[in-house]
């Protein structure tokens, strides 16, 4: 399936953050980030999202066709970070849909399955593609999933870590099943997202935009700031 991006009207999407009133009246930032999950089929992308968003694990998680969308909010110090997560289909055939989801994403988690060497190879291909095609400021994390099956491991931790270091990626081994490092990897991404570098520049650098609800300015998947 090849689909052109349906959102050509979308202006530059670097990072989007907006100040918002907290219910208690204190000033707190609410940032929204678009995050995309990529990786070979059945490595556990949907399972990671489900664990992160709902704290659940389904052994018989259905396969993903096209893509699925979920959101989850985490709190970091005085900032509320809202992730808008696109969980994509892993089968190679759906590849052509992927740009629609990673274009404009501020973060990506590339997932492989530590019990399957081929999926690691595929993850590397995704990383390359992101480095070439996605936003240059995109934060990429590499997740070696199914860590609970370490006794059937085919991809060594060190191998993946070295690769991640060479490419400037965040790296963790995760398990959607036992919840190991699942929240951590999302938090690590949240921390690394540029708002901390530019904390002061929120209003000055023109990158943060504040959109009132119902604002028609920019609506695309993942571009729905409130």
């Amino acid at each position, binding site marked *: 399936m090849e689909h052109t991006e349906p959102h050509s009207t979308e202006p530059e999407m670097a990072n989007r953050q907006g100040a918002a009133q907290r219910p208690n009246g204190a000033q707190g930032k609410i940032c929204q980030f678009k995050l995309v999950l990529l990786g070979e089929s059945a490595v556990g992308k949907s399972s990671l999202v489900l664990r992160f968003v709902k704290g659940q694990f389904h052994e018989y*998680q259905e396969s*993903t066709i096209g893509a699925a969308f979920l959101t989850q909010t985490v709190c970091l110090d005085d900032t509320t970070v809202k992730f808008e997560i696109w969980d994509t289909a892993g089968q190679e055939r*759906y590849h052509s849909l992927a740009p629609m989801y990673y274009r404009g994403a501020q973060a990506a988690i590339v997932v492989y399955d530590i019990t399957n060497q081929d999926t690691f190879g595929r993850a590397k291909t995704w990383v390359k593609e992101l480095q070439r095609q996605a936003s240059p400021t995109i934060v990429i994390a590499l997740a070696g999933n199914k860590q609970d099956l370490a006794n059937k491991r085919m991809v060594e931790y060190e191998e993946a870590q070295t690769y991640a270091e060479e490419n400037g990626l965040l790296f963790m081994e995760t398990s959607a099943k036992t919840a190991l490092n699942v929240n951590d990897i999302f938090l690590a991404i949240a921390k690394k997202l540029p708002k901390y570098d530019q904390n002061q520049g929120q209003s000055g650098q023109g990158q943060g935009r504040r959109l009132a609800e119902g604002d028609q300015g920019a609506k695309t998947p993942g571009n729905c700031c409130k």
Partner: protein
Amino acid sequence: MTLSVFVNPELQFSATTFFAKQHKGETCGANGLPLTPNSIILFGKAQFLKTLKNPYLCEYLDIIRGKHERTIVVSQFCGKPLSEYLGKKIFSDSDIIKIAFQLLTALSVLHKNKIVHRNLSTESILVQNSGDIKLFNYGFHYMTNNGQLVSFPIIKLSYAAPEIYLSPLKSHIANSKMDIWSVGIILVELILNKSLWSSLKLSQKIRKILSFYQCGTSVFEKIAREHNCFDVYQNLSAELKHIIEQCLQIDPRSRPTCEDLLKNEIFKEFKVVQRNNPSKVCEKYQIFTLKELYHWWKLAGGDIILELKKQGLIRSSPPILSMPCLVMLDGTVLGQGRNPATLYESKIVQMSLDTLYQRFKHIHLNFCYPLLHCKSDIIAAFDPPHYDTKALPLIIKEKDPEYQFHRIILFRRLLHGYPYTRDMIRKEVEKDIPPLLRGEIWAALLDIQPDYEEIYAMIDKETVTTTDRQIEVDIPRCHQYNELLSSSEGHIKLRRILKAWVHQNTQYVYWQGLDSLTAPFLYLNFNDEAKAFACLSEFVPKYVHKFFLKDNSAVIKEYLAKFSQLIAYHDPELANHLCDINFYPELFAIPWFLTVFSHVFPLYKILHVWDNLLSGDSSFPLHIGLSVLTQLRSKLLTAGFNDCILLFSDLPEVDIEKSINYSNDTFKNTPRSITTREHQNEEYYKTTEYDISGVTLNDLTRERCPRISATDVVDMIRNTPEKILLVDIRNPLQYSRCSVRNSINIPCSSVTYGEHSIENLGQYAQILKNSGDKIVIVIGSTDTDLELFPKFLLNCNIKKVCVLHGGFNILISVTPTVLVSQKFEA
């Protein structure tokens, strides 16, 4: 008075129960997935037993899973065990020969199907009033995967062949020659008219049987002597003696097979010519089968589990008593052991049919023979009672025993006459489909090839291909809440069907989702893989033609564009809102249409949706999609992009019956050409030169309102002029020269498009505002802009706006008779 067709001594069934082996702790299989519970494996394996039909075999009806790996087997059960006659009745030689013949015939059917009884005894042979026998519980060893799925031994001590005692404890072997030994023992018992070794203790019995290894002479003779019956042995006819001696050979290889034994002269008189079943879609005609009776029994309130509870076979103990004493960190549980004595219940619980008889008391014999072709007033008096099928909810209809009785009786007659009754089947299906016959009815609706079995048999389903990995990871994620599909048998079958399909359809490739598309067919035809495959093979070209092309992007995009147009056509307000928030079908509807909702709905919903789909064409899924949006309409209208898309991430409770009714309505009320596609399979559509064609994907995606064909328009001008509003947007000059009768003229150049206000149309505003349910057909010509005006109407929330494909001029060639010229009129 209850009809005698229901009260038949052979139409009886019973239930038995036991526990499958529990996995210890939580262990994972090689793929990291938890091990499939043994009761599920067993459940899948046992399905095959339901297909065995033979006068000498009790029919398996159902396998039910209870709590904690409990398994309940429902099977035909009639007559009395042979064991009860032993010693009480004199068996003549000819009685014995007849029993031997029937027993061997039954076993040969089993052996041909690679089933070894291995648990054969006089208890599992049921003697009927007629004197014929039926073998019972013959699938126990088979369904437990040769005993591997249970933690108790399956053995009848006195009847077990000696090699069984010699084989290692957990070897789980089954050889058909073991049954032959048991046949020998049974025949000996009949001849001596007593059960063997009845006074011996367990260990003594085993020793006895093992001692045959040292016995140089005939085993039969030895047994006869030990039971003080040597005279009976001596006086026995030579043929019978020979048969028994052959059966009781110590070396299994020396024992003959059932087939060999049946060749014996003494069985000659029983041999009859067997007829093959000529019909493919339906089995040989009977008014109804035991399976159907069982189905009605359940609908009439029959509950197997409840009966077992009443009989004390299922006891519940307070949960506190089943708490483990100790749980180790690795998950090992100690001190919760189930009392091994309760693992297997030997009791057979016969089910009472009284409630059903009571319920069906008033059913007239005529109702068993519904008339299909001729009707007359006299005959009509015997028609089944009229049911207001439209008004009753599906769930009520499906649960009503009488209604299901009439439906099943009718459909099995129709299916029996298939393919000659094809049209009648289609007509009846519009009311509803009785769930019990759904598999057969679907196959008939899909017109599967009569030689589907041979076709399937010849397809390569084994050779390793590059798609294997994907299929392999998809199968354990495909509708796994369903017991059949999650069983090992289910996995194997699904894999074979998918591989066969990929092999057979070289123009296509495996897309994730094809697994879900196959699931309903496999579920309905679990014991007929070839039919499941045949259904899939007919379904794809009819409903998802070209969807599985390697590059399917143009096909899918066209389909999604048509979906957007259909929303705009029926619900402009929603369409406008979704468009405003950039909520495109591309983002959420691909799995809907690629898998015709089989990846988004649970099975029971898919079945009902497809019941209707199969009476429709490939545009039907668009209407289902629309009906889903309609159900969520109020939420969608107030939601922004995020909330909209979240709504679809896991499709919330969609009331499927509402959805179906709504889709049927819009499907009926939408002119066919509105949903015509370039990529639809022409084989299933009659086309004329006035149909829509030649629309590029670019045009299609740009046009927010659908086109309509001249054929449809002329048809409506002629037949339903009150339902249409023809808006001619050419300039007044052209209009006055020649126009469609009763059309109104709103020259498109005269409209100010700036604001979305219908008032811009001046004098005609009111007409359009009041167009209500009329189809608004915009007629232009080559030199008018055919997008701006319809889009304007759409933005003004005018419903059912469409554009005549080919413009005004096409009408001149189709049928000038609907045209008028104002000059003449005036």
